[in-house]
């Protein structure tokens, strides 16, 4: 029996999507990875349709990298203020969350799967954007405005590879894309709604551990080109500072190395090869600290970058 072909998720009727999800047979491709998802939560199907229309899916693909589920834990909580749990092969790494957070939990769970298992890559906590085959790495601590800037640039000429996770192939030093939705928090949701009114944004979910969160759909072209690996040419640590002029400062290589190691999920796992990847990267890519207040100023600065 030949396996069912992969088709764009948006071409599926809602009932078909819901049925594949309920049977645990939906295989969803994101960059190099396939997630097989099992859930009966309607909010997950709704958000997948809204945010993943261009991603390829198949019914019951023979191989998936991760088999995940969003399920209601047993017991009274099933009915009384229902909760949902993320599981990988039956294992629940997190405490359960209120059912309205089901889709956000799926996104976080998928991040966890990658960050704690995909040691075929050097994994950095950073956004990645590309222009053609030249990519910029945006590592930054939470609250620095990394996701907001990444969301904005991804609709202004830059191709979104990833909002949270940089997957670097240790052999080639190239970075792979996931092209998944951008996770926006709190004030960033309103900002993006204001500057990118024509984009698809999920209904904000209040009271999560990270505050109010919403997800922004990646542009169609970014999804179609997710398989196109890129070479990192620049490292930029963005810092949003209200009212500030745009200021940049070169980060010395030793400091930049320490910062990248800090942002790596699996530096300890890859050891010497991770060190080689990062020093190689710093040999060709300047590391720059960028302080900005206006997204448009930042966009112009990024546009002027030359490899």
């Amino acid at each position, binding site marked *: 029996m030949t396996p069912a072909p992969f088709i764009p998720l948006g071409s599926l009727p809602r009932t078909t999507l819901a049925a594949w999800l309920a049977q645990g047979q939906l295989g969803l491709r994101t960059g190099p990875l396939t997630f097989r998802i099992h859930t009966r939560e309607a909010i997950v199907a709704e958000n997948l349709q809204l945010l993943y229309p261009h991603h390829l899916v198949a019914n019951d693909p023979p191989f998936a990298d991760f088999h995940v589920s969003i399920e209601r834990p047993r017991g009274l909580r099933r009915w009384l203020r229902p909760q949902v749990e993320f599981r990988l092969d039956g294992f629940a*790494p997190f405490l359960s969350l209120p059912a309205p957070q089901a889709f956000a939990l799926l996104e976080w769970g998928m991040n966890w799967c990658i960050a704690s298992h995909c040691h075929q890559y050097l994994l950095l906590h950073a956004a990645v954007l590309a222009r053609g085959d030249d990519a910029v790495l945006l590592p930054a601590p939470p609250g620095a405005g990394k996701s907001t800037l990444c969301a904005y640039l991804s609709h202004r000429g830059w191709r979104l590879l990833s909002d949270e996770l940089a997957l670097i192939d240790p052999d080639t030093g190239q970075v792979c894309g996931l092209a998944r939705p951008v996770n926006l928090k709190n004030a960033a949701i309103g900002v993006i709604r204001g500057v990118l009114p024509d984009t698809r944004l999920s209904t904000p979910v209040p009271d999560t551990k990270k505050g109010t969160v919403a997800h922004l759909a990646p542009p169609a072209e970014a999804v179609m080109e997710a398989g196109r690996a890129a070479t990192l040419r620049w490292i930029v640590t963005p810092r949003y500072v209200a009212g500030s002029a745009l200021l940049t400062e070169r980060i010395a290589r030793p400091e930049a190395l320490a910062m990248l190691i800090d942002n790596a999920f699996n530096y300890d796992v890859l050891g010497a090869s991770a060190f080689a990847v990062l020093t190689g990267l710093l040999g060709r890519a300047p590391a720059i600290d960028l302080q900005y207040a206006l997204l448009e100023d930042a966009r112009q600065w990024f546009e002027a970058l030359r490899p």
Partner: protein
Amino acid sequence: MKAPTTAWSPATLAGLLADPAQLATLDERGWDTLIRLARRANVLGKLAITAQDLPADALPAACRPHIRAALALSARQARAVGWEIECLRDALDELGLPLVLLKGAAYLAAGLPFARGRFFSDVDILVPRQRIAEVEGVLLKHGWAGTHHDAYDQRYYRQWMHELPPMRHLRRGTVVDVHHRILPLTARFDPDPVSMLEQAIPATHCEGVRVLAPADMLLHSATHLFHEGELPNGFRDLLDLDGLFRHFGAQDTDFEQTLDRRARQLHLATPLAFARHQCARLLGTPVCPANPPGSSLTDALYTRALHPHHPLIDRPGSGLARWLLYVRAHWLRMPPHLLAWHLGHKALCRNATREQL
């Protein structure tokens, strides 16, 4: 969709984990299930080590990244444990005590071939009971700090158990379990740890470090599987026993007799009979035929508990079986009044170990 249970029996899985030729027969769908089961059973490292011996084209392209990732993890583990062992050896050196390793770290240090790629999290060591306070002091000085600070847990470990509360290194986050006995102080069996320490032998792959003599090593592993209440790694631990039987059996034709003699000396004949029975029954391990201990009920319980715990192959009653074995193990570990008290405490004060999002 459930996989047929017989298709993924412990013996089938063990065969696949050990034999590249059997792996080569799997299609993509077979690999999909195998990787899921191996990941959950914590034996992905073993799978990767075996798959490494396959020609690249015998492995579906989609699986290769997982094998590569697991190889990286197992290399990291070998590096980290090697370093940890050196640090522990240097600390115990100050007391003039040799470092005696148990379980996973011991298999690694002894270079046992079946343990290549074995994942484990803590390093277990055995020290003389009368020196336990000094050992705790010197480890503190070298950066390991006690965990389990609440009064109940402190009492649980110090009055009843065979080990100190786990000690975590302040900088590296690694955990060492310091054992001074083989079984809890409150257990019904009382194997003599002194003679096990005295008969410990140098570890071939680690200078200045000791491991238990072959028969003692197997008896210790058997005793743990028999007494352990929680069996999240039951399948992996069963594979250890199988590996120990086969490896030492092949090296020494008198191994089974030595085992019997040591088991009698140490009062561990029951766990040994249990280990032989379960290994032969579930994995087809070549062992001396033993009178099966327990009953068809315990066999049914262990069949469930010693499979990888995965929704694909869990059977009706798997959860109940694991709970009954948990109670049984505690029954063996402590007298009834303590058991009732302990289970009551655990039921009321269940601590979530999972991450809060």
